[in-house]
Structures are given as C-alpha cells and as structure tokens.
C-alpha cells in the first residue's frame, strides 16, 4: 500500500534509526505514539449512520493524513424470495479513491479494494453461526423481511495505517447507526387510530378479537410493515459496544511500531493486524488476526505481540469510546438545548 518507492539506503536508514537507543522516527514521535486522530460522526445525512476519520492531519497545512469516510445504509430484503437471511445480514465494502492511490493501475486498485473489503467483512460480519457481533434488531418481520446493513467505507487519502483507520471509522459509523422503527414487529397502533391507517397499501389485517398485548398473531399473519413515524431516525443499532477495532503492529526483529507512515510501512516488511473487541462485561475477544508481509516470525514473538497489542487496543478503544459519547452528546443533547434556547 506504500505510495513511496524507497531506495535501499533509505530503508536501511529508517530501520537503523528505529533500532537505535533511543529509537528515532522521522516525525519525532515515540514508537507507540499515534498521530492526531480526528473523528466526526453524522457526516452523511442520507445514511443511517456515518463517520469521518482522519489520522495525522497537519493542523497548519490543513490537509494530509489518512482519511476514511464510513457510512451505514440499511435496505429491506425479502427472506423468502430474495437474498435475505432471517435476522438480517451485514455486508462490508471498501472503496479506494483513485485520488488516494494515483500510482496504482485500475486493476491493482481493484485488488487493493477487494483485500481491504475482505478484511473488514470477515471481521465484522463473520459468516459462522456464532453471532457474537450480530446485532439483534435487524429483523422486520420474522422469517419474511429483514434489514440488510451495508457498511461502505471510502479511503480518501492514505498516509499510512489505513487498516486501523478503516476499523475505527467502521466502528464509529456503526455506533452512530440508527435502525428505523417498523410497525409489524415493534409498534402496535392503539385501537382508536386503526381505521385511518388501514387504507394504506399493504396494511395489516388485525383481528378484532385478539387482545392488544398479543403480538403473536400479528407476526404470523403480517406480510408487510410500515414506518409509524417517517421522520423518526429510529433506535440505535444493537451491540454498539461490541464492534471491534484494529491495532496494526509493524514488527522489526527487536522493536515494534504503532501507526506507521508510508515510508515506515515500506521499510518494515512485517505487519500484524490484531482486531479486538472489548464488550463491557466480557473478557477481551480476538476477532481477527492477520500477519502480512514477506518476512517470518517466531511463535514466542507472535505471542508477545498479541499480549502487547491487546493493551494498545484497549487504550485505543477507551479513547474512541469517550470520543463517540462526546459526539453523541454534541449532536443530540447540546443541539437540543441550543434549539430550546433559540425558541
């Protein structure tokens, strides 16, 4: 993924400065320091949830850094006749903007997009039966209609560490995602309001004799659903504290680095991607692990890397979580207060 082509002496220079005592990086950071991460949620008003993340933007120059925009869009799928799965399904895709990778041919760009999509898809929407990450509120009508959650990420600029950026943006977009409330499953209209709504197409035939609290018949006979409130964004997507984040460790035989720039990525052959998920009441879970690069590693170094990576991931997770809560606060509560003041 490196745009830079480095000469051998440059590569050797970077490697020897990283192994020196004290280790030196080109921008003066410590080995474990991340560049500034800027995050904003709610950037795509038409999407059900979105986020924009930038790692390493230079404050004075107003540009640069690795920039990723992720958005969640929900579509309705038919379980019986379409591709839908009962319980909903999640599909992730990554697009790399040609502006970010101007040095790659369109075939190489397609392959890069596909590889990044596979990493995201297999971690977030792993196709096994075990649905630890699968959100529970993606069903509309059980066994008939379900939501398809499309998570699309676009890489607008790449200045190194693109996989970490993708996972952070994906987590932020999923945190921000809201599922519209649908009537057949969750909301039951009170008896008095039933007649005006019944002439809507596809409205449900509700038996007169059943009790208002008995929703079993409704779920069985309902073939369609309605949005009770068109303007309501809906409820928050379930499982928001379980989405994983990624920590990429660039491994040299004696040291490891976090958040490498393009030049550092080109000089360090081996990369380990660790995706951890920290649910609040459960021990940390390794959702995915990838070793990439034309170099090899011993098992004990791998074990140490996993242990150390877990600690870094936990710090990253805590920082991201506090920022996401702050974003929620800014967009909902503070905005409401400001609006109330203006009225």
């Amino acid at each position, binding site marked *: 993924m490196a745009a830079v082509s480095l000469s051998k002496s440059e590569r050797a220079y970077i490697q020897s400065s990283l192994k020196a005592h004290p280790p030196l990086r080109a921008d003066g950071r410590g080995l474990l320091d991340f560049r500034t991460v800027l995050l904003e949620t709610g950037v795509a008003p038409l999407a059900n949830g979105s986020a924009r993340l930038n790692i390493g933007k230079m404050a004075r120059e107003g540009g640069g850094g690795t920039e990723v925009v992720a958005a969640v869009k929900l579509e309705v799928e038919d379980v019986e006749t379409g591709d839908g799965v009962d319980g909903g399904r999640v599909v992730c895709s990554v697009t790399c903007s040609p502006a970010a990778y101007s040095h790659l041919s369109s075939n190489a760009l397609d392959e890069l997009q596909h590889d990044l999509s596979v990493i995201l898809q297999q971690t977030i929407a*792993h196709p096994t039966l075990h649905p630890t990450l699968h959100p529970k509120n993606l069903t509309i009508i059980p066994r008939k209609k379900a939501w398809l959650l499309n998570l699309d990420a676009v890489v607008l600029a790449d200045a190194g560490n693109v996989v970490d950026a993708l996972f952070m943006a994906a987590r932020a977009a999923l945190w921000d995602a809201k599922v519209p409330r649908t009537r057949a499953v969750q909301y039951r209209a009170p008896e008095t309001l039933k007649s005006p709504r019944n002439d809507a197409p596809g409205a449900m035939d509700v038996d007169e004799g059943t009790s208002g609290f008995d929703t079993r018949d409704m779920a069985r006979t309902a073939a369609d659903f309605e949005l009770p409130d068109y303007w309501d964004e809906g409820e928050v997507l379930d499982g928001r504290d379980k989405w994983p984040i990624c920590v990429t460790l660039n491994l040299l035989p004696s040291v490891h680095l976090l958040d490498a720039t393009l030049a550092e990525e080109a000089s360090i052959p081996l990369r380990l991607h660790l995706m951890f998920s920290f649910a609040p009441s459960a*021990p940390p879970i390794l*959702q995915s*692990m*990838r070793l990439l690069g034309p170099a*090899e590693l011993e098992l004990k170094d791998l074990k140490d890397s*996993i*242990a150390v990576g877990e600690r870094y991931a936990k710090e990253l997770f805590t920082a991201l979580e506090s920022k996401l809560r702050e974003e929620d606060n800014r967009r909902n509560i503070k905005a409401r207060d400001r609006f109330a003041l203006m009225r």
Partner: protein
Amino acid sequence: MAQSNFDRRRINGPEESFLPIFDSDEEEETRWKPGNPRIGRGARDIRPIFLKAGLINQANGSAYIETEKTKIACAVYGPRQSKSTTYNEKGRLNVEVKFAPFSCTRRRVPIRDAEDRSVAVQIQQALVPAVRLELLPKSTIDIFITIIENDGMEGCIASGSVAASAALADAGIEMLGLVASCSAAVVGKEIWLDPTEEEGKVSSGTLILAGMPALETITSVWQSGSMTPTDAIKCMEACQERYMDIHAVAAQALLQNAQNT
C-alpha cells in the same frame, strides 16, 4: 428474455431450483451437539494426507494433495521471464486459485471470483517468506492451484499451501524451508485441528497457521471468528506441534518422487 446469469457459451440449467423435501433426516442422530466429543477423530487429530509430486508433466513442478474429502492439484511454472518491463530486483510470486464448479455443495461460476482471490492471497502470504526470491530478479513464478473438491475452506487453504510448497520444491526452486500449514477451530471449549466444513460451521472461530518447521518460524497467521487471545495462542501451539508431521509427509513424498525419476 433471460435475466442475468445467462451464460451464452454454456447450456444453462433452470434459473431457479429447489431441493427435494425429505420425510425424515437420518443425519439428525449423528449430527454433532455441543458438549459431545468430536465425531470420527480425536480433537487433535488431522485427516490423513496423501501427497504426490510430479503428476503434471507439462509444469516445472506439481503436486496433488488429498485429505479425506479435500482434493487439490497444484502446478508451478517458473521461474520465467516477467511480462512487465519495469525492473524487479526480487522475483515475483504469483498465486492463482480456482475452485472447480463442482467442488462445493453449491455450484461455483467458472470464471474467477472474489473468494478465489482471498484464498490466493492467503496462500501467497504463506509461501512468500519461504521462497528465495532475491535469487530470481526479473522473473515470475506462477503457481496455479485447482481445488477439485472442497471440504472446509480452512482445510483447503492449509492443504493448498502444503501442495504449493511441495510443487515449488519439485520445480527445483530454492527455498528456505518447506512450508507446512495447519488449521484449527475453537468448538465450545475444545480446540479441534483440521476442521471439515460441517465442523467449521459449528465452531466459534478458526485459525490457519503456516510456517517452516525446519526453521521453527511462522510465515502466516489468519484468524477469524471470535476467540480469546489465550485460545488463539493454544490453537497456534497445537497447529505448530502438528505441522512437524505434515512436513514429514511432504518431505517423504518429494523423496519418493526423486527416487522414482
């Protein structure tokens, strides 16, 4: 007019097809339930491997591997001249994987699709650190893997890596060591090695480890699904123990092939 998926060059079957409905499913009793031990093998047993090198004469090197229901043929062409005009100081290793249309339960399209590529990427990652590409400037080594029958994706990738490594050795390409690869799955609280497709479906996470037993190093790790870091480490240790045996099988097959020619 026909919808999409209409292939003009082939005789197309009906657009929609449905499985017949059977009265009783006899497999229900023998199906695995959580808490039961593994059916058919021990938890740490891998399926027996049949590996033979040198079956495809046209290629520089080839190997065929069979582990119960997984059958993979691998051919290596190279080192041959790179098609690109830019100077490459190190050789390039190009892996292409193709699932035969009849290899899986649902028919796969005859053209290369996305899943083929992700398998190819994993096999390439397993092999690249082992091949001495710096001795082959301006050259490309092409590895073509055909999966004739597929029983478990993780098993395919692991067996594919072993077959490719044996084929590379058969082609006489210099390597740092033979690559052996093993897959593991976490099922309930146990760790099962070499899961089949059915076993992969009931597992909560899988891990594929590839490395060179001769040098005791690891070239590729690919873990997906959820498992705790301790489980992941236990899987890796179990795989590492097992791939000594796999290495012995590959070495034995190559030796037999060399003695026969």
